[in-house]
């Protein structure tokens, strides 16, 4: 048998069993070179095992708990329901102002050119004359619901943990 160097490493760690272990032991008894290697390896294993084992301080768990308080609970459903509710309220609020909204898309209404600032002021003035409070509430609610959906979608797209 050649010097079973690799087996000696496993034997020194107590990870070698069965016939291979028996054969390695048999070789060890007759090979002074391997005996020296084995002694070195056993000593290395003992030194590695003897390195201090740390005991966790209570501060570790406390720090973890403090940090997770600021995080969303795992499995918490995104706020789709809240977003849906706000969206529905927004739509309801928009109903009375439907005619104003549809008027925006009427062919007879011509929007000013993009750079025509005075034209936009006139258009806004005309619009505000027809606008009701419900329209503002409705538009705001729909906008908030959209922001909520986007924000939640972004938070669910977490990078893969490594």
């Amino acid at each position: 048998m050649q010097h079973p160097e690799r087996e000696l490493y496993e034997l020194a760690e107590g990870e070698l069993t069965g016939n291979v272990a028996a054969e390695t032991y048999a070789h060890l008894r007759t090979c002074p070179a391997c005996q020296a290697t084995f002694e070195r390896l056993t000593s290395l294993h003992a030194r590695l095992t003897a390195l201090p084992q740390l005991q966790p301080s209570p501060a570790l768990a406390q720090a973890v708990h403090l940090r997770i308080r600021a995080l969303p609970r795992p499995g918490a459903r995104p706020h789709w329901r809240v977003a849906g509710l706000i969206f529905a309220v927004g739509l309801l609020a928009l109903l009375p102002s439907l005619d104003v909204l549809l008027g925006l898309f009427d062919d007879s209404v011509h929007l000013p050119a993009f750079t025509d600032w005075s034209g936009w002021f006139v258009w806004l003035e005309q619009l505000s004359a027809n606008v009701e409070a419900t329209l503002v509430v409705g538009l705001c609610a729909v906008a908030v619901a959209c922001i909520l959906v986007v924000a939640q979608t972004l938070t669910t797209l977490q990078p893969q943990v490594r």
Partner: protein
Amino acid sequence: MIFGVISTALGRSYFDPEAAGSPVPQQAELSDETLARRLQGGDVDAFNVLVERYQQVILNVAYRIVGDRDEAQDIAQEVFVKVYQHIAQFKPERRFFSWIYRIAINTALQTRRKPQMTSLENLTLSVQTPLPDELAERAEQERELWTALATLSPREQALMGLRYGADLSYEEIAATMDVPLGTVKTWLFRAKQRLTTLLERGS
């Protein structure tokens, strides 16, 4: 009450530190995988049990890799926060220990020490504190070992962390690193060969 209603509506639960030290007794007997599944469903008590179960080994895996107690503590903290944050990514058909150890070794390797710095720090420490001969010799041997460990490659350091920090078997290391058993044996064999050479050269 209003806060509670809002908190429930928003799907958030604020952790009660009072409950931290006393997880539900039945939870303590559950397997890691069951606890992880419960945590995926939002059970924070399951998380407490996992922290209690793993804090020491994670701390020691990190310590074997970075060689610094305070840094190991910070890494362990970071590992548990990552577990909490990313538990949805844990696949229940896998073993939890391999998932958390993988997070631990990656987090530790990102902050692992520079070899020279460690040896100097340790040297300063042993010089500052006068020790009886035997203790001084042991401290010196330990310092040599830390220095040798610090010069290993990241993969070898991870192996040493799992083997001697978490006391994992070769099979468990293979499961954690997602490689065949023979590969782990070869890597460990080479790592120890390098360590032996480094230590002999050092002494």
